[in-house]
């Protein structure tokens, strides 16, 4: 065990990656813009500077801890430097905080307040650049960029995409796709991980709040909401609710108060996905065609596969994603009801389906032609957790004070298998449960301990299904998916079933979730999801009575039309 002296206090350390980690462990929250524990160290923002006993100033993120080090974190010189850095950043920064998408969650704003910046002596004479509004998922405003490079490294190191990078140099430097292309012209998959790490308003979520408010106010529209699994463990973040706590009941109540006519759970859609995807896996295992079967519930992954690995497109399941399955079902129900109304010459209201999702890529998914049924979008709008938080706040509702309410019927029941879609490995676990077909706790445990849980980048498992060994892989994050696909291409590995979630740890850390999403938040959300599953009375999708009802009712004879992609 080694020790160093931080601000005259002895602090022990073991194998910390850098001095900054030791300082933070000791309880001092040294500010940073460009440091993320999961990314490489960049050392650009210089906010984490410290001074040693000889008066040398260095960035603590880029220094290896040494035994006997003596450092100070808050000397007058350091205070002066940090303030100057913020002031210079602000000098070239748009200062319209009140109208900024990141107002209240902006690190630059937070640190300006924390470090007591009261005046910026310099005028902003930087040339204003146009916003990139081309993507359906995120908006890029280069005028709010502080060049910390977090998005660049996330896109490259974690996601393996490398859409964004620095270009030009000196005062002309900016973060941009190659040749200043619009995001829509690149291979961007819309995962929004760049937005999740962006400390300012330079990358923000494309907002769909306004048309939803308009629909809620329109008495002729029946607005139906569905809530994705990962939303309920994150939407409490901005209301002071404990991180990772299941706030589904409160969210349902809040959505009713702001005017949603019916509120359902995408977990039910996930149950339908489990049914269809299990069937597809069994069929493919029997025919031996297009193996491995790739999951299709993550739209960023589907787009990634199309862009970079088109040869694997045929392996992707034809199943629609849970939100699309549920959307198609709700629209079909509405069509049937409208038909009945017509026969009995009654007026009927138009149905609008709004999905509350942790994801920015889902915004692009709903406009893809294969997700239309009879020429109509299955889901009309996707609101991210961040947007629904804003709407609840705008309506003056404190989620922490709302009495929880139950979901609507007839689709308001779901299984624990549907709930775990929100984390990496969840889809696989749900499908395996269905195929094993047993709800005995020993059998469930055997599946959960087969190696598919956890936060490793690539997880592998072998399970026995009716005497046949099925090889499974779970890719956690697009960077790992790329690694896996390359190995598959080289013929080094073979699988029967592969799950890919574009975001590391799954939807709980999606690009539309409330920020900041630090390691502790991720852990709490992950545990929250598994807790929902362990508390669920129904563990298997096929044991959900509503699933049986819809298969015998609305879905009868239309399974393929409503639950699978028409074009594939």
């Amino acid at each position: 065990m080694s020790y160093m002296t931080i601000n005259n206090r002895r602090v022990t350390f073991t194998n910390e990656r850098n001095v900054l980690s030791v300082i933070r462990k000791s309880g001092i929250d040294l500010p940073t813009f460009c440091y993320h524990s999961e990314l490489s160290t960049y050392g650009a923002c210089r906010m984490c500077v410290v001074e040693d006993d000889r008066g040398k100033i260095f960035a603590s993120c880029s220094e290896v801890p040494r035994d006997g080090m003596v450092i100070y974190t808050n000397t007058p010189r350091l205070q002066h430097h940090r303030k100057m850095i913020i002031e210079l950043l602000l000098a070239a920064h748009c200062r319209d905080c009140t109208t900024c998408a990141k107002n209240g969650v902006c690190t630059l704003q937070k640190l300006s307040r924390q470090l007591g910046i009261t005046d910026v002596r310099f005028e902003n004479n930087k040339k204003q650049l146009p916003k990139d509004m081309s993507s359906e998922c995120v908006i890029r405003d280069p005028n709010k960029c502080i060049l910390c490079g977090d998005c660049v490294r996330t896109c490259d190191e974690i996601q393996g995409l490398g859409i964004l990078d620095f270009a030009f140099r000196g005062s002309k430097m900016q973060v941009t796709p190659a040749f200043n292309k619009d995001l829509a012209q690149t291979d961007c998959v819309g995962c929004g991980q760049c937005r999740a790490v962006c400390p300012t308003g330079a990358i923000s979520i494309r907002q769909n709040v306004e048309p939803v408010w308009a629909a809620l106010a329109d008495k002729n529209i029946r607005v139906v909401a569905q809530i994705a699994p990962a939303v309920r463990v994150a939407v409490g973040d901005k209301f002071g609710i404990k991180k990772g706590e299941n706030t589904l009941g409160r969210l349902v109540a809040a959505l009713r108060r702001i005017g949603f006519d019916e509120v359902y759970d995408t977990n039910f859609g996930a149950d339908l996905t489990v049914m269809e995807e299990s069937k597809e896996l069994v069929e493919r295992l029997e025919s031996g065609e297009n193996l491995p079967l790739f999951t299709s519930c993550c739209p960023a992954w589907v787009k990634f596969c199309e862009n970079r690995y088109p040869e694997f497109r045929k392996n992707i399941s034809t199943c629609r994603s849970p939100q699309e399955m549920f959307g198609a079902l709700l629209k079909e129900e509405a069509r049937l009801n409208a038909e009945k109304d017509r026969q009995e010459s009654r007026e009927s209201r138009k149905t609008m389906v709004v999905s509350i999702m942790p994801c920015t890529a889902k915004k692009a998914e709903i406009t893809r032609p294969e997700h239309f049924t009879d020429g109509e979008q299955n889901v009309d709008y996707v609101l991210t957790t961040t947007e629904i938080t804003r709407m609840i706040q705008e309506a003056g509702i404190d989620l922490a004070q709302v009495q929880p309410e139950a979901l609507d019927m007839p689709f308001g029941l779901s299984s624990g298998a549907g709930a775990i879609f929100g984390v990496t490995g969840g889809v696989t676990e749900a499908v395996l449960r269905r195929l094993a077909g047993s709800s005995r706790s020993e059998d469930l445990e055997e599946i959960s301990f087969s190696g598919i849980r956890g936060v490793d980048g690539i997880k592998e498992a072998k399970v026995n299904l009716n005497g046949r060994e099925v090889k499974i892989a779970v890719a956690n994050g697009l960077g790992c998916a790329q690694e896996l696909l390359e190995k598959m291409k080289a013929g080094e590995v073979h699988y029967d079933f592969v799950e890919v979630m574009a975001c590391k740890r799954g939807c709980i850390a999606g690009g539309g979730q409330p920020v900041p999403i630090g390691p502790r938040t991720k852990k709490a959300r992950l545990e929250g999801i598994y807790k929902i599953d362990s508390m669920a009375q129904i563990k298997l999708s096929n044991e959900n009575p509503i699933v049986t009802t819809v298969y015998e009712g609305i879905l009868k004879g239309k399974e393929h039309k409503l639950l699978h992609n028409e074009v594939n």
Partner: protein
Amino acid sequence: MLDQSYYDKTDEIIAEHGSDQASLIPIIQDIQTEYRYLPPELLNYVAGKLGINEAKAYSVATFYENFSFEPKGKYVIKVCDGTACHVRKSIPILERLYSELGLSEEKATTDDMLFTLETVSCLGACGLAPVMTVNDKVYPAMTPDAAAELIRELRGA
């Protein structure tokens, strides 16, 4: 769309340097020497061959002032505006050249693709100030008139 010959030439250049990621700069330097500019299509092509993201390759190419995505003229004129040249009146030379050639800060190359006019921060020939170069040939102790005369000569050549 570029002619196939451009890609064949690029393949040759890549073969010469090897497809190591570190070879990016020498490769695009050679392409620029070959065509007097760096065609964007070829930068993306090289990036693909070397396994570098397009955005990263663009980042490298824009970092260095030397790389140009625009085709350059037959004569590339560099007017030095380093401190020594500047105090010895390089700006009047530059302005005269702008007016002689019908160019500006935004428009660097003449329509007939004969001249490209650039400024540089220092050519390292401060003793010869004010200095300019045409395709790496150095012209010392220039005046606006001498510069205009040089243009006339080059046009005639």
